[in-house]
């Protein structure tokens, strides 16, 4: 919607309001509201208002924003559908074939959903169950699976700035890799007090098979200058609110690591819109925000990146341990990135009822950021005693999670918790109590599954 059209619309609406006998105060409110609405441009509620009154395209989501919940027409207020308030998110959900039973939707707009722990048993996470984290909005072109006009620019500290088309990218040597992507805030719900941000429990991780070209090969085409020390990633997603584009980056060493890929397929299919169609970065083992979706530009920098998501408290950790609830000054924060050793129990489901003596198979996965999973231990007595689980071999490739299993039986009745604790090749393990930080990153406290055993 052009701002001119929008202006005409609001002028007309103001006229109608005035005709209807609005007081000067109401008209003043109107004028103020209209001017405040303008910043949202064609993505925002102005556009939706136009739709509402028959002026063309828009979404019921934006109308919800326009009216506020509770004021929307009853026809749109289907509370049984978690995505009812955002038609675009719902379209993206359907386009990706998302399994609503496997996922818990935290927000419709921006679309954020995690996989229930008991739905994470697949060794390779199918598209239908992969978690979704969006800081901003999903491009409509991605939902339409329309790659026209897409290209990837490499600029900054390179000898030759280059632009690669989708066909060129696909004609380069590509690899299939099973790579875990995990939101930096996964586990935030287990912090006490709960820090601000999406209350991810365990399921903001997926381990899909990605097909793509090593970023290294692309950067080498452009010729990396010695001065390059850091990357900056950009995409074509519409931005939510009045903010700079989301842009994180990684040190050159991680960018040049052979598992860091520019991916164009997820589990053998074109990447679903909500996972970054047509092309995304996959920077495995690091906060998911490094793996920019809808990628269209990488700039090499001669210093640490300062894009949105790199400064302040976002995706940053205190340089020293802080007391729960304490916020250290900004200069005492540093960029977060590599994940810690971690595991999830995928079965039994929490609150399962068991019979005395019944055998139950504990299943799950473990992963270790830049390191290797060495062991997984299981306890059923609140961490007093631990028994080793069976690891299903080394991972298919580095950065894929490792599956574990352990048969248990409970000889006595009562309430039990099954705990899992992974150990990496450096001897790091998971804490029993979650250390705290202001925005709730790096959550890796042991996973606890309550079960009851009947008499």
């Amino acid at each position, binding site marked *: 919607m052009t701002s001119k059209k929008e202006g005409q619309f609001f002028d007309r*609406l103001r006229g*109608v*309001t005035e*005709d*209807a*006998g*609005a007081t000067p*105060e*109401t008209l003043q*409110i*109107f004028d*103020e*509201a*209209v001017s*405040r*609405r303008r*910043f*949202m441009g064609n993505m*925002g*509620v102005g556009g939706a*208002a136009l739709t509402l009154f028959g002026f063309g395209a828009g979404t019921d989501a934006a109308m*919800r*924003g*326009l*009216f*506020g*919940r*509770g*004021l929307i027409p009853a026809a749109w207020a289907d509370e049984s559908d978690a995505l009812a*308030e*955002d038609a675009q998110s719902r379209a993206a959900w359907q386009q990706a074939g998302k399994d609503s039973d496997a996922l818990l939707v*935290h*927000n*419709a*707009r*921006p679309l954020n959903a995690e996989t229930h722990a008991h739905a994470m048993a697949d060794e390779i996470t199918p598209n239908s169950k992969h978690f979704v984290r969006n800081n901003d909005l999903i491009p409509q072109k991605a939902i339409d699976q329309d790659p026209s006009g897409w290209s990837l620019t490499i600029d900054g500290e390179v000898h030759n700035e280059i632009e690669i088309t989708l066909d060129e990218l696909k004609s380069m040597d590509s690899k299939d890799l099973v790579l875990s992507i995990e939101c930096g805030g996964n586990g935030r719900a287990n912090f006490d*007090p*709960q*820090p*601000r941000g*999406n*209350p991810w429990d365990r399921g903001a991780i997926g381990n899909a098979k990605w097909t793509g070209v090593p970023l290294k090969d692309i950067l080498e085409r452009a010729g990396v200058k010695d001065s390059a020390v850091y990357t900056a990633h950009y995409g074509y997603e519409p931005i*939510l*609110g*009045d*903010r700079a584009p989301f842009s994180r980056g990684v040190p050159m060493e991680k960018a040049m690591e052979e598992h860091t890929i520019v991916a164009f397929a997820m589990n053998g299919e074109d990447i679903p819109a909500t996972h970054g169609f047509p092309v995304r970065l996959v920077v495995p083992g690091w906060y998911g925000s490094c793996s920019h979706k809808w990628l269209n530009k990488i700039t090499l920098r001669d210093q640490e990146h300062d894009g949105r998501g790199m400064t302040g408290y976002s995706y940053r950790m205190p340089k020293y341990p802080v007391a729960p*609830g304490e*916020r250290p000054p900004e200069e005492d924060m540093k960029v977060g990135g590599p994940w810690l050793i971690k595991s999830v129990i995928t079965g039994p489901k929490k609150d399962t009822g068991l019979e005395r003596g019944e055998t139950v198979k504990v299943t799950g996965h473990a992963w270790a950021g830049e390191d290797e999973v060495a062991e997984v231990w299981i306890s059923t007595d609140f961490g007093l005693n631990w028994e080793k689980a069976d690891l299903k071999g080394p991972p298919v490739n580095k950065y894929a999670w490792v599956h574990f299993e352990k048969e248990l039986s409970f000889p006595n009745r009562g309430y039990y918790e099954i705990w899992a604790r992974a150990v990496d090749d450096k001897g790091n393990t998971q804490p029993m109590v979650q250390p705290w930080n202001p925005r709730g990153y790096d959550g890796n406290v042991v996973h606890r599954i309550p079960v009851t055993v009947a008499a």
Partner: protein
Amino acid sequence: MKRVFFLPLVAMTLGVFAAPAFADTDDEIQAKKQLFEQNCAACHSLTVATNQNLNRADWNWVLDDMEDYGLTWLTDEQREQIVDYLVANHGYGE
């Protein structure tokens, strides 16, 4: 008839920032709730806020950020009322 209906609709639509004019004046909590719902759903789902559990300092921190993101229209008084509402319903204390 049509216009009589239309005015409150327009007013609700565009006067969303002026809760006192439309709120149930008997019920302060309801007014605060309405203020929250009408102002905080403009960019994202209300669940983004309602699934939080923060103290007053953190809610104020969130509101500072929202203002940076474009929530420029709240008066100081409205902001305080929204924070009161959030601390009481999605928080754990001062």
